[in-house]
């Protein structure tokens, strides 16, 4: 882990820096610029200072109310899907067959939802859940459960959550499976000799060996669920009412729907800042976890 200090390494990193800066810094500057201005259309802009930011964080205004409500919904959504997908992903990873052709079949089916375009994921669940033509909706209704994700808030939430579980649990499961695969057989044999119960094996061997990938899984899942846009937009369009309007959906409504550039830009910055902070916390935890790695090398 003793890297040499060499400032010339910047040349190696320069292309990446250029590409990402082009895609990130320039647009971000536009956003900052907009966030301080107001527009009445026709490309006429007025200086508005931090006005939008004040409004954004004040729940009594229209903008603030909508932002904070969608933020709350989004956090609740992220919490629910993490609480389902992480344990479920671990259970699925532990249930994977050990060898033979079934392994490849399971892996391929698991990975399948991950490679479906997000709006198609929405379409699939839209079709699957409709009470008139969808298998799920039809079955539930014929069982006497009054299910309709278009008109009922609870049903809409349930649909969006089940859809996300369907879409992304595989990612957690595959990451965990990769972590489990890296455990040498000797660990299981030693645990057997030590008389460990199934639960003790999980706690003492499997969970510690998975913790790095789990951290990555939680980070990716939190971030992606916090930015979720396409899938609920296709299924529920943010409704009924605003019940499934998450931050990204709200943002696109304001920016592209109402062309309220100032408000949208201010919202973008705050949104981005939240993500940056969460990302930084994870990054710190992860690099600290990485410090212990060299010591583990003997066991690898």
């Amino acid at each position, binding site marked *: 882990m003793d890297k040499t200090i060499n400032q010339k390494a910047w040349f190696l990193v320069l292309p990446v820096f250029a590409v990402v800066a082009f895609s990130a810094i320039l647009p971000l500057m536009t956003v900052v610029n907009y966030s301080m201005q107001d527009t009445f259309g026709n490309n006429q802009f007025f200086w508005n200072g931090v006005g939008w930011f004040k409004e954004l964080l004040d729940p009594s205004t229209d903008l603030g109310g909508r932002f904070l409500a969608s933020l709350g919904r989004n956090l609740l959504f992220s919490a629910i899907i993490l609480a389902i997908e992480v344990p479920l992903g671990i259970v699925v990873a532990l249930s994977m067959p050990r060898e033979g052709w079934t392994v490849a079949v399971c892996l391929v089916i698991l990975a399948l939802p991950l490679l479906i375009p997000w709006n198609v994921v929405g379409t699939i669940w839209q079709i699957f859940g409709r009470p008139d033509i969808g298998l799920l909706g039809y079955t539930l209704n014929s069982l006497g459960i009054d299910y309709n994700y278009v008109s009922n808030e609870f049903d809409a939430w349930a649909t969006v959550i089940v859809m996300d579980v369907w879409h992304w649990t595989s990612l957690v499961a595959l990451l965990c499976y990769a972590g489990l695969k890296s455990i040498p057989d000797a660990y299981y044999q*030693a645990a057997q000799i030590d*008389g460990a119960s199934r639960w003790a094996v999980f706690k003492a061997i499997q969970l510690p060996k998975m913790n790095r990938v789990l951290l990555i899984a939680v980070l990716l899942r939190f971030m992606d669920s916090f930015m979720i846009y396409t899938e609920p937009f296709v299924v529920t369009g943010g409704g009924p009412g605003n019940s499934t309007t998450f931050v990204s959906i709200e943002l696109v409504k304001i920016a592209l729907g109402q062309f309220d550039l100032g408000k949208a830009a201010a919202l973008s910055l705050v949104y981005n800042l939240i993500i940056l902070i969460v990302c930084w916390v994870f990054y710190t935890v992860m690099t600290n976890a990485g410090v212990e790695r060299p010591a583990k090398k003997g066991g690898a």
Partner: protein
Amino acid sequence: MARIDLVDLAHSYGGNAAPPESFALKPVTMTWRQGGAYALLGPSGCGKTTLLNLISGIVTPSRGKILFDGADITPLSTQKRNIAQVFQFPVIYDTMTVGQNLAFPLQNRGVPKAEVEARVKQIADLLDLTPYLGRKATRLTADAKQKISLGRGLVRSDVAAVLFDEPLTVIDPELKWQLRSKLKALHRELDLTMIYVTHDQTEALTFADTVVVMHDGRVVQSGTPAELFDKPAHTFVGYFIGSPGMNIVPAAVSGHEARVDGHTIGLHRNYGVLPAGAKIEIGVRPEFLHVAAPASGLLSATIERIDDLGRARFARVRVGDEKFSARMPPGFSVPDNMVGLVFDPAHVHVYADSRLVEGVA
């Protein structure tokens, strides 16, 4: 603590129906006494790890039985066999401290807390781990980790045998010696049956009082280090053990004489009837073959190379197409590359189809 009997034990990873020559372990019957230190020695793929895994219960034998103190434990799971095993790579529970690692096997078996603490303390003292008890096990060096794996085995008072699967592979050379002495000392102190798998003859010969040499799924010889050295039962043992290994050359043997390259070598015993059609060879360790000035009555040879091993010098010599290693007496110098070879007849052995033939005195 137990005596271990292997009864017609054999294993094939391809199942019992596989052809006999493909068995990873060919049928073996032997007894290991309680309290003995045994080494299973052989090159990779010789079946030694398979045999170890059969004893520990990780692998179930295709055929045969394993008895601990006369009781058949073949169908028992690893947990119920009461054995301890130290693996090639240190296995430690990352998230636990050294103390928790040592306590783990006892806690799993529901041993009362006070007793657990007492045992852990005792074992930690024995293994010099006491200063580390509160430390996270992940941060320790490889040799300390191996001691922890060993400690997890020893902490149980009922352990029948301790198995070692090449435990020194990842240990630094200077620490290997220390750890091996520690094992010897523990063995004397605790009166445990220990079985040690290795491909390193030095480790095997210094650790064990009985070395079991394996080759191609078969036990070719089981004996004390001295027996393996003085009287290899199989040509494989001859050249696998000893450095340089035994010289083994084709020869025509009759009575008290062996003929190699038209030259007659005297033998200590009489080999009257040798199996017809068998491949006959003689074997002599380089330690019992030395070079001398060429003289009539000596097998003459050409020196190709001289290896100075510090304590002794060995010459690589050639006789016709055959190569020999032979000891060079101190101070002996070679005028030209021609020398004569002097055999010690008491240590020349005869092999028929690679197996030792006992002569008649």
